[in-house]
């Protein structure tokens, strides 16, 4: 190992793990985007100084143990019901920063009703949606967001339109609702993408501070275990296959849809 002891001094520090994350070792697979997204959210909470006001709603899925990693108040929700819990907590504590952290199986499948109605009511919550196109935790089954032709445990010959229908672009769907104020899609596979994602999450929490309405941030992520690839190959596959269907960028800003 190469260490330059002249450089490693506290005054030269440019980056270290944020204290808003606990010291627990994350249970996620090596290279999983969940870890990066956790860190980015924690950094935004630290920069805004809202650690004692933030409330995380943990979902069911790979990120079910999110409350072990965020050093903020947390509440577990029944499968898909995180936006309903977030609605209640935000209404009881209107000055707190309530955010849900959900995967695609949680938010776009079993929790579709809660998600759509919370967004339609324009609840002042932040919804973080991690889309990896698969049910990662239960062993890689088909999710609503699985791409056409993608092989999963329940579609071994690839997803077909005749049998399974089309991939659900729930982010575009939610952007149509008048209650959503900010809808965006980002990713965390490169340093530049991480910086953009952080900016988007910061914007979402700032909107919440101004009581503007629902902010919805989708993060296209990888699932290298479920996709049966190495982490680096999964990120490349994501760029080539996920991004054409789920293009990265802002969809709705300040309550107005962004014209493409």
């Amino acid at each position, binding site marked *: 190992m190469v*260490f330059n002891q002249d*450089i490693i*001094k506290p005054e030269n520090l440019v*980056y270290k793990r944020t204290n808003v994350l606990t010291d627990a070792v994350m249970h996620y697979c090596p290279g999983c985007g969940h*870890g*990066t997204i956790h860190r980015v959210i924690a950094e935004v909470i630290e920069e805004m100084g809202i650690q004692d006001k933030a409330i995380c709603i943990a979902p069911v899925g790979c990120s079910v143990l999110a409350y072990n990693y965020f050093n903020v108040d947390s509440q577990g929700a029944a499968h898909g019901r995180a936006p309903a819990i977030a609605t209640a907590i935000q209404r009881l504590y209107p000055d707190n920063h309530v955010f849900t952290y959900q995967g695609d199986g949680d938010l776009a499948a079993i929790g579709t009703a809660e998600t759509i109605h919370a967004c339609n009511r324009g609840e002042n919550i932040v919804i973080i949606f991690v889309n990896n196109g698969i049910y990662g935790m239960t062993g890689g089954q088909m999710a609503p967001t699985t791409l056409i032709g993608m092989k999963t445990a329940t579609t071994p010959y690839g997803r077909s339109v005749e049998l399974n229908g089309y991939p659900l672009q729930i982010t575009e769907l939610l952007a149509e609702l008048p209650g959503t104020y900010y809808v965006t899609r980002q990713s965390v596979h490169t340093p530049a993408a991480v910086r953009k994602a952080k900016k988007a999450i910061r914007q979402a929490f700032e909107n919440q501070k101004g009581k503007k309405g629902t902010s919805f941030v989708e993060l296209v992520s990888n699932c290298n275990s479920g996709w049966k690839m*190495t982490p680096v190959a999964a990120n490349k596959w994501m760029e080539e296959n996920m991004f054409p269907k789920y293009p990265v960028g802002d969809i709705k800003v300040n309550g107005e849809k962004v014209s493409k």
Partner: protein
Amino acid sequence: MAIKGSIVVDTERCKGCGVCLGACPNQVIALSKNVNGKGYNYAEPIKDECIGCASCAMVCPDGVITVYKTKL
């Protein structure tokens, strides 16, 4: 005046995913031949050409990289 950087990897927490390798502009990082307590080939700096850009730390899913930078 040159900008010099250095990284410190928490080798016991590193899962050896290798995402940081591609993020580094100077190819400073490589996976070690040794393994940590969990059996992962952890990431480590192999060259003295780090510029302290923190790109590796930005993409690290487990936040195991600490970055230092100075002007010499």
